[in-house]
């Protein structure tokens, strides 16, 4: 066991899996010599050589397209996109090929590959460095999307992702890359993709969130607990295909539902969860299922970004409204 933060856990986990499985190759912009702009791949090139961990020229489409070919030909590529806002040049590869190769060939060719990227904002970064892509990716059948909220989960989920026979997008909340440390076992363990985690049990309202916001929601839940409002908090962990049963069961118990996410509101991920709750637990609902989300605007530059992101107070206020409906 060692105390690790999120980004060092990613590094440790890649190291762990590269040692175990020589089919794993790691690449992307600045991934090799420098070890990544966030240092997620630091030391890997030295340890495994430039054939296993290397820098690429600057072109996200080629990075993802190359991963497709590698995965077909027997490797398990783990590609890094430097920030999720730079995923768009690869979007054609993602939608047209990554998501479809298995179906297109009726299972003949499969893509065991992972695309890792820093995700979300709140780090006072330049434009395009704060994007949340859940629904842009989640709408596409054939992709799996995972967002860890803790170092412990990151290791278990990343190992599952690399070993998965389907393509997995591993979105790493950059805001909490170094926010806190946690004991992470040295041993091998996996956490199943597609399973949510109840991080706080409660009776008053179901609150679903993921990534960096798990911590803000938990803070809000503590505030509310002090007021006698006992929220159940679910860390969704997998955005696609997500754990519908966990949500539905919880809402059947609490009768109230709030989803909290960074992404923009309209046509955003929260809408899907609300639609699900309607479809599966309509008769249990005691208040309108509610979204606490980013505004439908471009994420502001650093001087204004605090307006875009929710803090525990705003989250608590939103949950309170639903409970008091």
């Amino acid at each position, binding site marked *: 066991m060692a105390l690790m933060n999120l980004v060092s856990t990613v590094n440790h986990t890649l190291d762990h899996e590269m040692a175990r499985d020589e089919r794993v190759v790691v690449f992307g912009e600045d991934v090799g010599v420098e070890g990544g702009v966030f240092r997620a791949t630091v030391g890997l090139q030295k340890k495994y050589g430039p054939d*296993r961990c290397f820098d690429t020229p600057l072109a996200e*489409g080629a990075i993802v397209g190359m991963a497709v070919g590698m995965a077909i030909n027997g490797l398990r590529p783990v590609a890094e996109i430097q920030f999720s806002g730079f995923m768009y040049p690869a979007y054609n590869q993602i939608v047209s090929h990554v998501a479809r190769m298995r179906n297109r060939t009726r299972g003949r060719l499969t893509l065991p590959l992972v695309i890792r990227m820093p995700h979300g904002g709140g780090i006072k970064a330049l434009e395009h460095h704060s994007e949340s892509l859940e629904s842009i990716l989640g709408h596409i059948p054939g992709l799996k999307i995972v967002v860890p909220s803790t170092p412990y989960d990151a290791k278990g989920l990343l190992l599952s992702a690399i070993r998965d026979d389907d393509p997995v997008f591993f979105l790493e909340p950059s805001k909490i890359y170094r926010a806190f440390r946690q004991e992470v076992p040295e041993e091998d363990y996996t956490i199943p993709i597609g399973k949510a985690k109840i991080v706080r049990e409660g009776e008053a309202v179901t609150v679903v969130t993921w990534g960096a916001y798990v911590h803000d929601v938990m803070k809000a839940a503590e505030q509310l607990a002090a007021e006698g409002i006992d929220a159940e908090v679910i860390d969704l962990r997998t955005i696609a295909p997500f754990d519908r049963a966990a949500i539905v069961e919880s809402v059947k118990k609490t009768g109230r539902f709030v989803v909290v996410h960074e992404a923009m509101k309209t046509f955003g991920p929260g809408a899907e969860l609300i639609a699900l709750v309607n479809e599966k637990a309509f008769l249990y609902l005691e208040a309108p299922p509610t979204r606490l989300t980013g505004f439908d605007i471009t994420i502001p530059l650093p001087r204004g970004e605090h307006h875009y992101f929710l803090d525990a107070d705003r989250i608590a206020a939103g949950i309170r409204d639903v409970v008091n409906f």
Partner: protein
Amino acid sequence: MLTKRFDPLKGEMLQIMDAEGRIVAPELKPDLSDERVLELYKVMLLTRAADTKALQLQRQGRMLTYAPNTGQEAAQVGSAAVLRETDWLVPAFRELGAWLVKGVSLEHIYLYWYGNEWGSHFPENVRMLPISIPIASQLNHALGLAMASKLKGEDDVTIGYVGDGGTSIGDFSEALNFAGVFSAPVVFFIQNNQYAISVKRAVQTKASTLAQKAVAAGIPGIQVDGNDLFAVYAAVEEAVNRARAGEGPTLIEAYTYRLGAHTTSDDPTKYREDDEVLVWQARDPIKRTKEYLIAQGLWSAEQDEAQVAEYEAYALEVFRKVEETGEPQLEDFFKYTYRDMPEHLKEQYQEYVQYLEGKVK
């Protein structure tokens, strides 16, 4: 080295056999046995027969959209003929001749154009990717396949196909550039058939050849007469050998012409003159190879006629089998999205089955 001898920047193009089937550069002629040449010629014939049949069937309303290959058979067959079984072939969508050489069955191909996904489920030993519709995106897969061969220490080579139109889209440049940087064992093969649907080659780029686009990636490039089976073979052979020896990628432009329509939904008279087509009909790769074979005493007009008839009958028979496959399995549409069908897909599938059953009742 051919890529040194024929500089696309000087407008030089490799030709070994001219439009009348005469060998004009005997010293460059690839070392192919007469039987092998005849074999390849027969694949060209089969390609054309399959095309002819598909177009007929489409006009009868039995085949769906189809992208014809007529006029491009030498480029297709000559390039794929160089590959060995463990090499990878990455198609665009108009390389029927190449696929047949690589061992894909005509049944698979017809099944695909007939609108059934099983047409892209090739046997284990056929190392070919499915057709890629988003233009040029497949070249990065070719790069990736080649990179994997290299990183695994295997000496397999990958060939990736693209059209003249495809050279304008970013994926093309990115794939070439990555391949150059990593010395990936890949050959990029352009079928320059002078058109991207209605858009003429001259509107596609101001570059005087497409082969010179190799310069941007710092890799060798060569333009060859794409209707000359021997020139195509020779250039690809050199490139494949180089790749296999660890010396990196090559770009090859096969200068050819689409004699037919872009697809069965296209009417080429809207954008090109008959005269132009006539000029290129005279350069027909099948006519040319046939004349060569006849001159060599390896083939005759009668044999040719009989062979064409046999292939057309065969193509029809294959298509009939395809027609008989009937409705695809409903479950298949849901089953192959992920390795294991997730719960929401099971639900969608079951609800739909219930709906259909309810309707039947």
